[in-house]
């Protein structure tokens, strides 16, 4: 075991970010700063610094983010194995920070208009990033739980920060109650698994790898373990809003501050995905087929419920919520496949989904800031009132529908190809039919913006920061669609490292 101070250097990103979070909250509480730019830019500076630090992080001359050498990846455990410093965790940490930066940039105007506690707003976003970073690095159930809770508690408060009490109160109470309930379930599930593993004399009973060792011993799992696993899946399914644990998402998106809804839809879901990949890669080690069916059923439910319900929506926030739910279904297809290839595809798909999610929410935030309207048919004629916003959201929607030139096409292709390679053609067919359904309601939104006339000819303006966010994310969506090879090194390395034992 290495000594603690030695290990501490590897935790520098987390330490910086937690410190930054407290500093921002402190500034917000103890000073009276009237300029809306100071806090967000202070936050972003810190985050960018951390992101750069992660990009160049190497251990013993190994550049972790891009190595694909199996031997080099084995000994990256720190604190006696509680945390894993492999390229998977680094890639996700990097993504979380980037998403955090974008969300903060998008929030500036919104916070100025609709939120009273700006210090807490930015500070808690930063703290939740720390939570997600711990989740992605966790190599053990309790550490993962701590990360999960740090994220969840920050989000509970963030969701309630809007200053429209009627909507915010409902959604924040709903979120706290449901979230607290699932947290309890997760904890109970962990305790069940722990008990089972201790009974079988497995050392380090909360480690993911121990679950893997345990799983390989059984053809069919004992009921208590299955029960524990079920509770764990419930909790994680809640986090990524997979059906049947998805019902909170539309309501919360509707009531939460819009940037926070975007944050929930992108970063928070990605954190859940990261944790799920970590845990399931171990559990699937053993009895594969029985779990595949369960995950596949969850995938079908999630995709279908998400897409079919989305057709009937009249408010854009709910539409995006349901479309996000259906995307988690596609990711579960990849999870049911459970190969290195499918993990690569999942990561690529999540990144693409996050980028297009940022664009969608960026546009909606701009729109909402200036009009305060929430219905899909309020978007009518957006092309005439602001063509840049209309084009941006169209590209993002087409990417999420999986059409070429955009990252959604190649990532879906990759995901489905990996699934077909594991004889899951039937699941892929259902997924393809689902993406056809999704195209329908995306087209309805697009039609609203281009074909229909605007209600009032009031022009909608965009400021430079919003343009910057949108254009950068669009470069991500289009650039990765045209030449995805540029980030494949990092993604390959990440997905291989999950499977290193």
């Amino acid at each position, binding site marked *: 075991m290495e000594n603690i101070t030695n290990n501490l250097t590897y935790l520098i990103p987390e330490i910086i970010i937690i410190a930054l979070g407290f500093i921002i909250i402190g500034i917000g509480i103890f000073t009276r700063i009237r300029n809306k730019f100071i806090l967000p830019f202070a936050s972003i500076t810190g985050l960018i610094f951390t992101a750069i630090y992660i990009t160049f992080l190497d251990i013993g001359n190994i550049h972790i983010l891009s190595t694909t050498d199996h031997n080099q990846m084995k000994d990256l455990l720190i604190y006696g194995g509680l945390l894993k410093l492999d390229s998977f965790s680094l890639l996700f940490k990097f993504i979380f920070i980037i998403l955090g930066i974008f969300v903060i940039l998008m929030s500036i105007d919104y916070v100025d208009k609709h939120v009273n506690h700006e210090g807490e707003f930015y500070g808690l976003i930063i703290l939740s990033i720390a939570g997600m970073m711990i989740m992605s690095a966790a190599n053990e159930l309790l550490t993962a739980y701590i990360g999960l809770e740090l994220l969840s508690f920050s989000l509970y408060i963030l969701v309630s920060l809007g200053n429209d009490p009627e909507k915010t109160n409902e959604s924040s109470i709903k979120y706290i109650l449901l979230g607290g309930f699932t947290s309890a379930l997760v904890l109970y599930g962990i305790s069940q698994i722990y008990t089972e593993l201790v009974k079988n004399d497995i050392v380090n009973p909360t480690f993911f790898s121990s679950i893997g060792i345990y799983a390989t011993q059984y053809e069919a799992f004992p009921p208590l373990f299955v029960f524990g696993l079920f509770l764990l899946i419930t909790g994680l399914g809640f986090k990524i809003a997979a059906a049947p644990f998805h019902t909170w998402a539309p309501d919360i998106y509707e009531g939460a501050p819009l940037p926070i809804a975007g944050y929930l839809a992108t970063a928070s879901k990605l954190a859940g995905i990261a944790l799920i990949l970590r845990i399931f890669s171990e559990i699937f080690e053993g009895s594969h087929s029985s779990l595949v069916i369960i995950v596949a059923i969850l995938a079908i439910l999630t995709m279908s419920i998400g897409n079919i319900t989305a057709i009937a929506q009249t408010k854009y926030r709910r539409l995006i919520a349901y479309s996000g739910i259906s995307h988690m279904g596609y990711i579960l297809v990849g999870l049911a496949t459970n190969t290195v290839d499918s993990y690569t595809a999942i990561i690529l798909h999540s990144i693409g989904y996050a980028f297009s999610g940022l664009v969608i929410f960026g546009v909606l935030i701009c729109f909402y800031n200036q009009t305060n309207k929430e219905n899909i048919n309020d978007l009518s004629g957006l092309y005439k009132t602001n063509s840049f916003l209309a084009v941006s959201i169209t590209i993002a929607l087409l990417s999420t529908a999986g059409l*070429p030139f955009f990252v959604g096409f190649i990532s879906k292709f990759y995901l489905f190809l990996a699934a077909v390679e594991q004889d899951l053609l039937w699941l892929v067919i259902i997924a393809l039919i689902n993406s*056809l359904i999704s195209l329908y309601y995306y087209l309805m939104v697009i039609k609203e913006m281009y*074909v229909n006339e605007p209600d009032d000819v009031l022009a909608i303006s965009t400021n430079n920061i919003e343009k910057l966010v949108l254009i950068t994310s669009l470069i991500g969506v289009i650039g990765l669609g045209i030449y995805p090879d540029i980030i494949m090194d990092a993604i390959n390395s990440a997905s291989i490292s999950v499977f290193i034992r």
Partner: protein
Amino acid sequence: MDSWILPLILIVPVITLLAILFIPKNNDETIKNITIFGSAISGILSLYVFMAFAQTRDPNQFDFSMVWLRNLSIRLDFGVDGISALMVLLVGIVYLTGTLISCKITERIKEFFILYILLIIGVYGVFISQDLFFFFFFYELAVVPMYLLIAVWGHSSEFETFNRTKEYGALKLMLVLVASSVLIWIGILSTFVVANQNSFLFKDLIDANIGNDFQIFIFPFFLIGFGVLAGLWPFHTWSPDGHVAAPTSVSMVHAGILMKLGAYGILRSIEFLPAGAQEWMWLLLILGTINVVYGALSAMAQKDLKYVIGYSSVSHMGYVLMGLATLNVIGVAGSVLQMFSHGIMTALFFALVGVIYERTHSRDIETLDGLIKPMGIAGTLFVIAGLTSLGLPGLSGFVAELFIFIGVFQTNPLMAILGVIGAAITAVYILRLIARIFFGTVSEKWANLPDISKFELIPSVILAFFIVFMGVLPIYFIDAVNESVKELINAYLSNFVAG
């Protein structure tokens, strides 16, 4: 130089697109000029590709290859044989003429051209890709812009008894095409996995010698998936609705090129799924024949000028499908020639329908009358297109249809007879149409219409030129195509000789 010409064919439209993107909105003239200039270069490049190919007939001369995604070993691999070279020429011609025709658009011209060029990039890409993934990538890309092109710039049909909004046409087209591409997705994914070559290249898939049972299982997915885009009966109804709702130049590209993508896709899948093709070709032959007859009969029943042409496209695509289904050299060669001939012809038709509609604001063949008097040049060109359509010797349609009929007679005489009957029906409705709208009594209403303008004349003449050229000198085209078709059919047959 030669290995760069195919990438260049894609890059030129991309550059044109980017140039338009960065020009401020109100500079309509600059945007038009740049697009015309870009499309002219593309047209010349396409012509060069075809002529260079016709000279050497070396299918590897333009090969270009680079790795695109290492993980899945997807390669950006371009190359043309005789079939695709002819299709590239077709795209070049229709792109240029369509651009010229579009210059009369006044509303949101910048966005129109951006989407239009995106569509063109898609179709170019399909014809030059030698990799199944990119084939499909560009195929989907060609479908994407159609929705907005039709829904924003299209026209709704408003008759007393019959109303179809442009949104309806656009949505139907988009959803049907994407639904059909679901079948292609399934086909491509499972073919890749079964072939187990870790490559999407056509030639690797051909070498893989995929098992017969799987071929027979998967071929219908490709057949129907691509067939829908080719207007295969009974999945054809999206096509007339889409044609009619679309603005002129988009109808031209749509009927002239886009439907050929489907037929071309079937042709390519014959290459790597020979046993499947052999098993299922009876179906294609029957459906193709139904296409011919049913399309022709439907065209006869239409009152809307554009619907007549729309259904005639369905009927003519039937010939293409029949020719493919013969799987002999003469039939397939005829089918390829028909793709080209019909592409040019139908583009001319839609261009002229656009011209007529522009002036009369009516497409009702009951009210249009005696238009040859005010619009002599347009009328003459329309008659040329009409005569090609019914297969008059000396014009492009004749050679193509002759080849197809000979090919079909060799495999299934009954279907050939039905096909010929279809051609006869075509003659009836085309001649009736021409007689009615051009040669009736001149009504007061139309007497003072201006004739075709410069921007409409040039593209129409280019199209008419190729119709006549191919009719008079078919050997030039046949020679270019024949060798590649022979190679394809020989490769197909060798699968069964070996066992």
